[in-house]
């Protein structure tokens, strides 16, 4: 039997997690309270949503989206889920099952859209056809479907499970390459605009490790396996680099990302980079800066293309890393 170490700083019972950046240790119950408080603080501080709003949670079956859904319900929000079947073999089959089990066990409404069934292509085929890394086609598809579904079904806000680690890594990538347009748009809440719904990221005050811990403590069964197509992408490299710094100096990721939001994001919001007017896609009517949106370009390019296997895409991706856009545009 394991000998427990440190004590919860609130109740002095054995702790289950220590958070060096907060100089805090918590038992399961007080850690869950901490997660709820941090989520509520992010929602309030960034004016993400109201208790009367209809909320659509982007659900993947992973720790972040299921923890987010659970946290929002605990805070009293009316939240339904939307799961997208991306066609990534067994990985997608399992992620759909985790999402459905979570919803069924709690009597929640989970909408499902199958990418191939509805739009005629899947992520591996899109990645192979567009000759881009899989995460690029995947991100474009998910954003398009979540946005259009929310608007068509009258949801007030779409929420995603992007956590502090995700946002710090995206900021790191955007700052390394001085992607001014992406930097100007990297905010935890984006208002409804040009036919797009309001979008929010309520987990930006919580780290990735904390979301996994929240799931374990609250018996949320999530898909632990990572997407087989994401392995080795640039985004993971950025996370690794930031975690090395975090180990030396706890709190760095929080200071980096939230310092950006407090100090630089307001400046960038006034720059021309954030003022571009969006037109409408000639095919689907979605907001876009081009004549035809990225999603419709993928749809047109994959029309009539035979399904491509995951293995083929992975071998091509690892053979020639032509482009990465792991968590790129429109975030």
């Amino acid at each position, binding site marked *: *039997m*394991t000998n427990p*170490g440190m004590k919860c700083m609130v109740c002095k019972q054995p702790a289950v997690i220590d958070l060096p950046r907060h100089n805090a240790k918590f038992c399961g119950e007080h850690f869950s309270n901490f997660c709820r408080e941090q989520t509520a603080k992010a929602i309030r501080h960034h004016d993400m949503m109201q208790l009367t709003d209809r909320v659509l949670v982007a659900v993947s079956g992973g720790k972040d989206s299921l923890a987010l859904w659970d946290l929002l319900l605990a805070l009293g929000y009316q939240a339904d889920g939307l799961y997208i079947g991306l066609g990534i073999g067994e990985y997608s089959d399992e992620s759909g099952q985790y999402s459905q089990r979570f919803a069924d066990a709690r009597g929640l409404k989970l909408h499902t859209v199958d990418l191939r069934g509805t739009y005629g292509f899947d992520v591996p085929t899109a990645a192979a056809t567009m000759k881009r890394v899989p995460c690029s086609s995947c991100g474009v598809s998910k954003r398009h479907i979540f946005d259009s579904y929310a608007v068509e079904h009258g949801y007030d806000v779409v929420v995603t499970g992007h956590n502090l680690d995700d946002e710090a890594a995206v900021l790191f990538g955007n700052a390394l390459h001085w992607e001014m347009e992406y930097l100007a748009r990297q905010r935890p809440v984006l208002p409804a605009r040009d036919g797009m719904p309001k979008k929010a990221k309520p987990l930006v005050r919580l780290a990735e*490790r904390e979301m*996994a811990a929240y799931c374990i403590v609250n018996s949320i069964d999530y898909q632990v396996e*990572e997407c087989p197509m994401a392995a080795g992408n640039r985004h993971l490299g950025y*996370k*690794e680099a930031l*975690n090395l710094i975090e*180990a030396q100096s706890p709190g760095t990721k929080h200071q980096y990302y939230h310092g950006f939001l407090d100090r630089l994001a307001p400046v960038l919001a006034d720059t021309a980079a954030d003022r571009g007017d969006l037109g409408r896609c000639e095919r689907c009517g979605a907001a876009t800066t081009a004549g035809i949106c990225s999603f419709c370009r993928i749809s047109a390019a994959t029309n009539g293309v035979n399904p491509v296997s995951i293995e083929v895409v992975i071998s091509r991706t690892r053979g020639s890393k032509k482009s990465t856009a792991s968590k790129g545009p429109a975030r």
Partner: protein
Amino acid sequence: VKVLLRNPKREVEEAGPVRVHALLDRLGIHRETVLVISNGALVTGDSLLLDTDIVEVRPVISGGA
């Protein structure tokens, strides 16, 4: 200590008693990237693992779109 690892899935035996952080250092695993679950319960870095414990080292880093 029986240790279950992922990516790829495998099982290794490590000598106990050993603190969680020392075990991770021994395995070359960064503390920020995993959680450690001993006999089904989440444990902190200074918890002492014994020879009879079954431990899962669960990665927490995601990297999709």
